[in-house]
């Protein structure tokens, strides 16, 4: 196994390949697969990046896999943001805080020799994949979910409880249970990504108060064509509350990631993006400090919706 041959000297923060910030119209997505990180030495190196409070949080998780996942999530966020710094910044030196609604953000003033950046990020993790999205100037929310994820309740009762009426109708119009389940998961990730992008917390934007649908579908036609509802179409959000919600400001992308996950990305459209261009996304699979692989355009990244 490659990992066992690597020396400690490879695991320094200067082995983080520096990156240029994404342009205003771009989103960068970085992901780690926990099963690709096996070296104890490497995991200990990641642990060194965390302040005491984050270490405590990692160790509060019940079980080895959950602890590893929590550690990788913090390591991914810290190493990813550190890459984009003009001066070499150690992942250890980054400080984070939460906005008034609890959304995490970088606390630039706390870093020595700080350069405030219009950098926005958001993370999401499942047992088998951890991801971090990065944008400039515009807030971002991401959510990933295992493609095979099954919920305990019936899709119909869950949707009736949490989704909007239009979304319930759309899901109930799908006769094949497996396709219905897939569409449900896709819709869930899109709704989560939107709420996380808004940064107002779960209660700030209750799921019932907005509908996400393909731009092609309309209020009248609620039935799906043979292909999935989001495929090859723009994805839009409509507010069922007040019309001052600026829902036209938000753009979505839905991807199949690493063959195993759905990833939904929501970001605010840049004010320079007058022509409503689809989101440009660059995706990297990474093992921080060890290897980075640009995977856009490969089988690891398959566009499902919102992208041409």
């Amino acid at each position, binding site marked *: 196994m490659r990992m066992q041959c690597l020396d400690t000297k490879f695991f320094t923060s200067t082995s983080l390949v520096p990156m240029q910030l994404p342009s205003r119209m771009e989103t960068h997505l970085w992901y780690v697969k926990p099963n690709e990180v096996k070296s104890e030495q490497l995991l200990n190196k990641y642990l060194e990046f965390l302040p005491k409070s984050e270490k405590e949080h990692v160790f*509060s*998780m*019940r079980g080895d896999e*959950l602890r590893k996942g929590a550690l990788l999530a913090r390591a991914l966020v810290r190493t990813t943001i550190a890459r984009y710094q003009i001066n070499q910044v150690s992942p250890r030196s980054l400080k984070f805080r939460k906005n008034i609604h609890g959304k995490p953000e970088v606390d630039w003033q706390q870093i020595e020799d700080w350069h405030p950046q219009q950098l926005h990020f958001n993370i999401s*993790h499942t047992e088998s994949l951890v991801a971090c999205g990065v944008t400039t100037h515009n807030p971002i929310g991401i959510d990933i979910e295992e493609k095979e994820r099954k*919920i*305990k309740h019936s899709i119909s009762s869950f949707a009736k*409880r949490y989704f909007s009426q239009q979304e319930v109708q759309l899901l109930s119009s799908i006769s094949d249970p497996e396709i219905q389940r897939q569409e449900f998961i896709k819709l869930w990730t899109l709704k989560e990504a939107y709420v996380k992008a808004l940064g107002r917390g*779960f209660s700030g934007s209750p799921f019932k108060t907005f509908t996400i649908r393909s731009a092609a579908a309309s209020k009248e036609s609620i039935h799906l064509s043979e292909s999935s509802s989001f495929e090859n179409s723009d994805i839009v959000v409509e507010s069922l509350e007040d019309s001052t919600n600026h829902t036209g400001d938000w753009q979505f992308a839905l991807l199949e990631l690493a063959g195993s996950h759905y990833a939904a990305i929501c970001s605010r459209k840049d004010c320079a993006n007058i022509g409503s261009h689809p989101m440009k996304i660059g995706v990297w699979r990474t093992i921080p400090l060890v290897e980075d692989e640009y995977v856009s355009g490969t089988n690891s990244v398959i566009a499902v919706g919102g992208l041409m």
Partner: protein
Amino acid sequence: MASSTIAASSISFTSLTLNNKGLAKNSVSLSINGKSFPSLRLQAASRRFRVSCAAKPETVDKVCEIVRKQLAIQPDVAVTGDSKFAALGADSLDTVEIVMGLEEEFGISVEEESAQTIATVQDAADLIENLVEKKGSA
């Protein structure tokens, strides 16, 4: 977490022990589930008191059961009132399913604002009893 307002009502002694050794005449130290609280003044006028905080053990147990099932927790992992959902591996989808499970089990309706504040099993149990009580008195 547990508030220590003292109001006039009856009290169940199963989860409380009173210990007023070596304390001032009108104060007691309350020990709830092994946690002790600073001594409190009792109203001289009323000897009856209720501590309005921790939910019934049965409620906590029921919540633990629902959480165990939802998160498929291994039998050797302990789930107690103190257990945090996040630490047990609950993601946002799990959390809303747990809330839904609690609504079904207890016949209550949990608003998003309240759901967002639930971090531990105890939080959930307390919220449930609160809602059940409100429902009962409506």
